[in-house]
């Protein structure tokens, strides 16, 4: 069977994987903000991804410009993040539980956004969508415009995030994530900061959901299932593989975000290889979880290993 594998077809599948990876990269930025900067395991994303997608699809179907729909998806995602933030800060529900509660409730909300349907199709034949698998596979200028636009979008997003996390309020988010007590001692309203970071994070996730739904040609009430794992995988693969390259560079934060986007792309490339090798894709979930567990454990194991080395040197 291996003989029948054709390297060309793998290469041909790459543009699609890269496009999917870049769109999920936006989602991974969101995960990066909560998981890495704020040190908050936010599971809202499984739901807010759908909220963003559903909002965008319904608006586009109602005749709204896809660009405005994208902004609306960002806002819808922010609203979801706001709820998690309030549940956590104002009502004292532990973070992970608060996010699970929001995620759960979002199922009903998303269902209602989708007009009491589980699935709303949006065809690239009928609307001028921002993203579509069709553009990826077309041979004409659509493809170039799409990839150029997506890449430019990612770069702009990184620039905006770089700028934002350099401002006083952005720094406050990072400080809160590093040491909450210390941040509070510095006069930072950590509750406000947490809500804000969750809103930004889920806004990004909602935006990614909007692009993703257009890409797939439908918003589905289940489309965010397991999103957090893909987001985490992107963040962690990016950090582990490119972390060293980013260290001590100028604009290190921007490079780190870029590596997160690369992490998402890599995730989809690996998946494309799995499909190309014609392995039974049923095992993909086990594989994703194993990858994330492996890469999550690396810093810990490294620490252990590193310490021993230091002792020996002494």
């Amino acid at each position, binding site marked *: 069977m291996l003989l029948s594998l054709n390297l060309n077809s*793998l290469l041909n599948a790459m543009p*699609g994987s890269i496009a999917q990876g870049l769109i999920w990269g936006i989602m991974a930025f969101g995960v990066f903000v909560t998981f890495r900067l704020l040190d908050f395991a936010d599971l809202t994303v499984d739901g807010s991804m759908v909220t963003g997608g559903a909002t965008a699809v319904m608006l586009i179907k109602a005749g709204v410009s896809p660009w405005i729909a994208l902004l609306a998806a960002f806002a819808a995602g922010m609203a979801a993040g706001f709820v998690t933030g309030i549940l956590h800060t104002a009502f004292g529900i532990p973070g992970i539980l608060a996010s699970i509660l929001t995620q759960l409730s979002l199922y009903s909300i998303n269902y209602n956004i989708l007009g009491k*349907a*589980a699935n709303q*199709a949006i065809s690239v034949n009928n609307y001028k969508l921002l993203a579509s698998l069709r553009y990826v596979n077309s041979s004409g200028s659509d493809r170039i415009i799409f990839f150029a636009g997506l890449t430019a979008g990612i770069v702009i997003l990184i620039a905006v995030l770089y700028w934002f996390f350099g401002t006083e309020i952005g720094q406050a988010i990072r400080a809160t994530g590093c040491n909450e007590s210390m941040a509070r001692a510095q006069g930072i309203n950590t509750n406000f900061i947490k809500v804000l970071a969750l809103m930004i994070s889920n806004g990004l996730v909602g935006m990614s959901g909007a692009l993703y739904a257009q890409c*797939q040609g439908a918003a589905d009430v289940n489309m965010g299932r397991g999103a957090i794992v893909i987001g985490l995988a992107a963040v962690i693969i990016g950090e582990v593989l490119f972390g060293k390259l980013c260290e001590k560079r100028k604009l290190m934060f921007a490079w780190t975000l870029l590596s997160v986007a690369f992490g998402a792309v890599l995730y989809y490339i690996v998946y494309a290889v799995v*499909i190309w090798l014609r392995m039974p*894709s049923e095992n993909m979930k086990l594989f994703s979880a194993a990858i994330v567990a492996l*890469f999550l454990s690396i810093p810990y194991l490294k620490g252990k290993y590193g310490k021993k080395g230091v002792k020996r040197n002494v």
Partner: protein
Amino acid sequence: MKKMRKKLFALAMASVMGMSVLAGCGSDGGSSSGNGSSTSGGDSASGDKKYVIGICQLVEHEALDQATKGFEDALKELLGENVEFVFQNAQNEQTNAGTICNAFVADKVDLILANATSPLQAAASATADIPILGTSITDYAEALDIADWTGATGVNISGTSDLAPLDEQEKMLLELFPDVQTVGILYCSAEPNSAYQAEKFAEYLTADGIAYKEYTAADSNEIQTIASAAVQECDVIYIPTDNTLAAYTEAINNICLAAKVPVIAGEEGICKGCGVATLSISYYDIGYATGKMAYEVLVNGADISTMEIQYAPNVTKKYNAAICEELGVTIPDDYVAIVVEE
């Protein structure tokens, strides 16, 4: 020195990542994927073109499996050795369906079989050129966002629908339970096909002046609750072809049978588990019909954009003997008992 070691470590990690792909996914290589790799490398009769067909199935599920099997059987009969199936399962995730269909398009397969709604939408997004056939899809207009439906899609898509004749199902319910007061319609809200059937079924009930109540579960955890509520308030229950409920017929049966409330099912699998009777379509049959459509498109050059969506060729009235006996329901002669293989 230390830098070196770190680099080696990173390299080792990368190779572990690669290995885990092979280990995790290759362990039961090919056993469950029916991609029919060429069995005999012998004949090199290159006169006939060998067709490669990508199959994207939403999830492991008996009905969907049957449709895929019917499709493959039809094409194997018609094309013999000259067809190769690349089977991929999306594990119930829209994301995966996109990746899979993208790989098919990149692979330049000759035709894509999209088994269920999400794969169809992903395939439709991925290509406007490669012919796509759907199966196990209830309503193509809804799934593909086509406003003025004419029976064919007008684009590179056609296929078969798994819609059982709902009006006949409703007639069957009234035939078996003429004294029914309120019908409870149970389905999973995450399934667009079920909602569509529930809506149609409710219309037919209303036309006959029968009251109905809808009970929806968001996921499998809620099935027990809605079933318990339904048996309190209704005297007959109807379940459409719902994949989520189909997986929990045992739980539904334990509630409905205990409450002596009969269930009319949308398909045979559900009826076998918890139903009194069903008007059955065979997913194997619609898969087989889709296979014949594929042959028309690939070999006879039929124009897929004008091919009308086909429906199940045969419907059979079937009943579950064990449950009918327990409830004391008398079944007319033209029903066939469902074979329970023990």
